[in-house]
């Protein structure tokens, strides 16, 4: 009896296994997948597939050879929906597409404007897509342009863009959003999602390189407009997302025309809703510390008045960024990307319950008071500027 049982267990091991087995060298590694929609409402998918053999470094084994060509290939496919388009790849690829290492999903501007719900459903339903993949809206060109960028430090454009996104925490010049975050905000009624934006820079009509800059404001799953770098920064100031960025003011403390650069070393912000009857307003408070990294007007920073003046300039600059952002999202696009509604709901749930249905009308006219407090911490290695005689 026991022996039969053992036999059964051993056999069952061999009978059920292997169904999802895929050898690593038989996969088509997708690094960068772009999705768009064309004029006929057909869904387009573009993938960048790596050719690992061409990636191997000089002495690598395999069949590398001396003249390694381009390490990637771009494939496109069309279908009535994204799943169909995706399965259509099988007709032209020798290997199965492998998406688990893909960390960026590019969204074409057309798709973004017409709503990305269908794409989101396909992506979140398929277990191969990483839920931490970055969502990026491509502006200034098509996805095909993006896939064929010529200027690159890395071996293939995807790496370049991934590097840009990860590098972003040093510059805070663009908004980073992954699938998880997008779905989360989409399911929260008090906030509207924002997605990072990749801008293709063209030279003589040919795509040269891409800049990861600014953002795209969404109302639910539809893009309503693009935000500039300045506006994005304003939103990030309010969202408390600024960690380490540079700040340039374009006049001196004495009103003279010059440029002074600072780096932000620490920043935090808070949004406090205020309710007065039916009247709702918000206080935005931003505090930050900064270091001075460049100035060319030879200010003497041993003077306390001068430091105060520089701090005032920074406050003014940040405030203008925030007001720009508010102008864009509140007045121009009328979407609550910052989440004022959420703040109100957290603090005054009853008021929110009353205003919820009319929030779209109320929001564009809500008053937002912005106050900024800057502290200049250090001025680099120089306290007295170099004085040529």
């Amino acid at each position, binding site marked *: 009896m026991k022996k039969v049982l053992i036999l059964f267990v051993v056999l069952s091991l061999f009978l*059920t*296994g292997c169904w999802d087995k895929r*050898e*690593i*060298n038989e996969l088509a590694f997708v690094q960068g997948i772009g999705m768009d929609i064309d004029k006929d409402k057909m869904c387009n998918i573009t993938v960048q597939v790596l050719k690992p053999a061409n990636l191997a470094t000089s002495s690598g*084994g395999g069949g590398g050879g001396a003249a390694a060509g381009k390490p990637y290939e771009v494939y496109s496919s069309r279908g009535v929906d994204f799943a169909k388009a995706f399965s259509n790849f099988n007709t032209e690829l020798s290997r199965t597409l492998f998406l688990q290492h893909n960390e960026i999903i590019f969204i074409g501007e057309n798709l973004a404007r017409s709503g990305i719900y269908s794409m989101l459903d396909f992506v979140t339903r398929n277990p191969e897509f990483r839920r931490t993949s970055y969502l990026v809206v491509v502006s200034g060109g098509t996805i095909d342009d993006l896939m064929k960028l010529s200027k690159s430090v890395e071996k293939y454009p995807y790496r370049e863009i991934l590097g840009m996104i990860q590098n972003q925490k040093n510059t805070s010049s663009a908004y980073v959003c992954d699938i998880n975050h997008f779905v989360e905000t989409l399911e929260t009624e008090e906030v509207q999602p924002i997605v990072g934006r990749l801008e293709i820079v063209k030279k003589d009509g040919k795509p040269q390189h891409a800049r990861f800059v600014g953002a795209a404001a969404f109302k639910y799953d539809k893009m309503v407009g693009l935000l500039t770098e300045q506006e994005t920064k304003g939103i990030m100031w309010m969202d408390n997302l600024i960690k380490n960025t540079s700040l340039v003011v374009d006049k001196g403390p004495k009103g003279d025309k010059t440029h002074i650069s600072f780096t932000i070393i620490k920043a935090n912000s808070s949004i406090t809703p205020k309710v007065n009857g039916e009247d709702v307003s918000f206080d935005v408070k931003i505090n930050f510390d900064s270091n001075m990294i460049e100035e060319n007007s030879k200010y003497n920073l041993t003077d306390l008045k001068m430091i105060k003046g520089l701090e005032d300039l920074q406050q003014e600059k940040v405030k203008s960024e925030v007001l720009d952002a508010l102008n864009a999202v509140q007045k121009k696009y009328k979407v609550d990307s910052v989440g004022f509604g959420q703040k109100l709901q957290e603090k005054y749930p009853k008021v929110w319950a009353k205003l919820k249905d009319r929030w779209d009308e109320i929001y564009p006219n809500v008053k937002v008071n912005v106050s900024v407090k800057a502290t200049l911490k250090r001025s680099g290695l120089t306290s007295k500027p170099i004085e040529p005689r």
Partner: protein
Amino acid sequence: MFLLGLFNKLFKNKNNGNGESKDVESPKVKEDIEENIKYIKDMLKDSDDIIYREFWVGEEFQHKLELVFVDGLVDKGIINEHVMHSLMLDSRQAKPSIDEIKKNIYEVIKKAAITGGDIKEIDDLDKCITSILSGDTALFLDGHPKVVIISSKGWQMRSVAPPETEMVVRGAREGFTETLRVNTALVRRWIRDPKFKIKQMQIGKRSKTDIALLYIDDIVNKDLLSLIQERLKQIDIDCILESGYIEQLIEEDWHSPFPQMLNTERPDKVAASVLEGRIAILIDNSPFALIIPTTLATLFQSPEDYFERWMISSLLRILRFTAAIIALVGPSIYIAFTSYHPGMIPTKLALYIASTRQGVPFPAFMEALIMEATFELLREAGIRLPVPIGQTIGIVGGLIIGQAAVMAGIVSPLMVIVVAVTAVSSFSIPSYSAAIAFRLLRFAFMILAAVLGLYGIMLGFILMLTHLVVLKSFGLPYLSPFVEINLSDLADTIIRAPLMVFKKKTTYT
């Protein structure tokens, strides 16, 4: 227990065929010396290495004596100097009264003439033969129904040398030899406690191998002691060639790949174990002592852990446990990741693996199997080869197979690394028996990984742990002290706490 039964059956049948039976009472020593010698000569017929030396003692040569011993097993110096010389020459100078000598020549010879240190007298001829065959000298005296057995063991033996399988940087360099008496002495030198017991018995119907149980009377668990003695008595086998025989014949679970007894060549390890309340079994003709009971944690201990400072020892312990896991699942993790879960490998590494595996014609499992099998071959061949040629195998293995296999595109470079790391890991487990258990299970894990991926590996782990939890070594859970939570017992497991902590330690770990 099935196998043990089989053994018993086999050996019993053999014995019946020879028509030998235990029930026949062995003959007593007779008064007539000729009869005794005849019996022995009968029994030891056709054994040309037995020497019968007849000689006369007394002023008128009136006493007939005969020595019987095995040439080569005895120290002839002892016989010449302390037996024959004493009896034939020195005793003439003694001047006891003639009457007394006549009356009691046997007592005189025994107590006043033989200058050898260790003698005893017996009256059983079969026991006498056993003694002769184990290297003692029998002295027969005409007219007296007793034999004097003079301990004269002195054969060519290997001298005490460093234990080759268990080297340490710091610590005693002595290892056991093949002679039981030398080995017991080596342990005795570590423990001068009167309660330290060395209890001997003989096992093996034909080999009559001496084995010794070493324990400290007031620390040892009496139930354990009687259990071991019981099991040893039940052994019914012709010959004990190595301690491995004893190990396999008295172990609890013969299904298990894990050693349920620790074997060691180091007297200090035996002494330390005995002091912890364990029982050691020493076997004549084997330089390996068995230590009972054994837990999984003890297999990872090296004597050196206690000689160096606790911090580095703890680090080394952690290293060894990690090494065991690598030795167990190294190749199977590679198989699972490359065949089932390429998404779990960091992107750049995944791409590298994909690029190096580009031309490899086999799936990862076959690749791993080829390399592991090659490595096992190299290891096996390395043991067989004589030392001067042994180095060649290193060159063949390392350079030709490692490098050439990669160049030829049969395996990927990463696979070679995996196999190498796995091999090095398996060598860092102090107990060779434990290391080979992990080596064996590695192949099972590889198959599981090839069939079910990481899920299979986890399944394997669960099966292995279930087995380990159930397994007992002579009543002691194999996984103790991990199975019962007692913080002070954990002090000597994955870490080696400072020695002060051990003062309160009561159980074996």
